[in-house]
């Protein structure tokens, strides 16, 4: 509860964005509100077309929303423009899916770029850029050009560039979507490392649940321009309420439903009991025979989260006993049926 008292570093209030196209009006965001606290790694997940890109562009005022406001560090970004907006943007950096490095500049001079435009003397900028290249682990590529780098290396340069102005917030727009799984993992652990070292707030826009799992503390599920659900990653993973969140957390729900038969229950592991072999203990203590129909476990911030569907014995008394046992251990149990 302590967290809610903090003033958010980014406060998005009643944001709407309507695009005028030849085919009529397209609503990308509708009455969108979200608070992001200082030091969070906040994930925004949604299918393509849910309005993620529009949202991130509204956060740093690259896109002017139709209505609503974005308060960054106490400043209303919609009320400022020109020089003041440009100065404010320097404390909110962004990295992109396509990296967006300057192709005619070498790595070092790409990292110097944001310092150059904020008027930092060349020598100071160069020193800072080299430190950052060291931090992201590609100092040896300082004299190379972006075309000579791999995707992961390019994103490292982009991260170094984004950190050059000592921003308070790092916006990541599908930053790992163009990368292979191994490279994605290494970039995510780099972001996590940077978060731990610099305490920077990170906003991650993605369509991949794996990215949220690996790095985020909070998540908002975006659907058709509004938030379907938001909260801590743990909460959303263990108890997804909205259809959109369920679809992301249980992508194979359709397949799983085929297994759901009579007397099936869904057991949710929320990380509180992962060291105790609760399930085995239940079988032994209650002397019941259960049939595991489906299981999906994930490791999130060191906790085992997931759910399992089991079929209980026909004997109602035994079944009740098993359920009571699990509930007593603090594990949520719900009836699993096809209407999920």
């Amino acid at each position, binding site marked *: 509860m302590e967290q809610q008292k903090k003033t958010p570093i980014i406060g998005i209030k009643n944001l709407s964005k309507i695009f005028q196209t030849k085919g009529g009006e397209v609503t990308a965001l509708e009455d969108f509100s979200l608070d992001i606290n200082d030091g969070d790694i906040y994930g925004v997940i949604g299918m393509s077309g849910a309005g993620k890109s529009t949202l991130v562009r509204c956060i740093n005022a690259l896109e002017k929303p139709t209505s609503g406001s974005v308060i960054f560090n106490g400043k209303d970004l919609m009320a400022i423009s020109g020089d003041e907006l440009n*100065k404010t943007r320097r404390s909110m950096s962004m990295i992109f899916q396509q990296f967006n490095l300057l*192709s005619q500049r070498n790595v070092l001079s790409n990292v110097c770029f944001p310092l150059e*435009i904020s008027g930092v003397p060349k020598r100071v900028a160069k020193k800072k850029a080299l430190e950052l290249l060291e931090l992201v682990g590609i100092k040896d590529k300082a004299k190379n050009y*972006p075309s000579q780098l791999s995707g992961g290396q390019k994103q490292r340069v982009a991260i170094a560039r984004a950190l050059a102005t000592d921003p308070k917030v790092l916006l990541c727009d599908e930053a790992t979507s163009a990368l292979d799984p191994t490279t994605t993992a290494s970039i995510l652990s780099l972001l996590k490392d940077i978060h731990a070292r610099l305490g920077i707030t990170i906003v991650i826009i993605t369509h991949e649940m794996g990215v949220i799992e690996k790095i985020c503390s909070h998540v908002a599920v975006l659907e058709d321009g509004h938030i379907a659900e938001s909260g801590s990653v743990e909460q959303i993973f263990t108890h997804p309420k909205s259809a959109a969140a369920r679809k992301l957390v249980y992508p194979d729900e359709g397949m799983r439903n085929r297994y759901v038969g009579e007397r099936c229950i869904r057991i949710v592991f929320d990380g509180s009991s992962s060291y105790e072999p609760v399930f085995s203990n239940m079988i032994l203590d209650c002397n019941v025979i259960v049939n595991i129909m489906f299981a999906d476990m994930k490791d999130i911030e060191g906790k085992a989260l997931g759910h399992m569907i089991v079929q209980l014995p026909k004997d109602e008394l035994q079944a009740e006993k098993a359920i009571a046992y699990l509930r007593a251990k603090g594990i949520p149990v719900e009836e699993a049926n096809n209407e999920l």
Partner: protein
Amino acid sequence: MNFNVIFNLMLTETGRSLFMTAFATIGAYLLGLPLGVLLSITDKDGIKPLSALNWLMGLFINIMRAVPFLILAVVVIPIPRFLIGTGLGYQAMTITLVIASFAFVARLVENSIKDVDKGVIEAAQSMGASTFQIIYKVLIPEAMPSLVLGAAIAATTILGFSAMAGILGGDGLGFVAITYGYFRWQRDIMWIAVALLIILVMIGQFAGNFIARKIDKR
């Protein structure tokens, strides 16, 4: 005419052709580069959309480009006359060439600038770069290889214009070709002048391609 006379004639007139081409190209870029940049950034997809100004500039450039060179050259004769006191000779023709070609240069520049990756521009905006900083630190450097190729096209086109200007008393190889080949029926002199023009165009184009490839880091 003996060899020495022809040689000296060709040397002088090649020099004048190069003078006209070089200075007219520089002049055309002094006007055309800012105009082309302005044209691309004020476009509705540009970094500073200003549709009325964009439309007006587009109209002006289209008019300038639609008027045939020889007619334009006659119309603008008062300008070099006012600026340097004469409407004849290669210096005067250089000014005429600038006026006749800057609109074409503006279009070339506009196209090069429009080819710059939108994502890179967005990245610069997200870093808080001003419009002016985006122009001289992102748009022009990123478009440089393409701008160089465009400059080679512009210079060779201006060389062609300068040859046409020979008919209006403009000096240079075009003037030689017309005077000797057409008026005096000395076809051999004409062909030498034409060959020299071809060589100049080829050198210009080759140099443009070479430099563009050399500086492009993509």
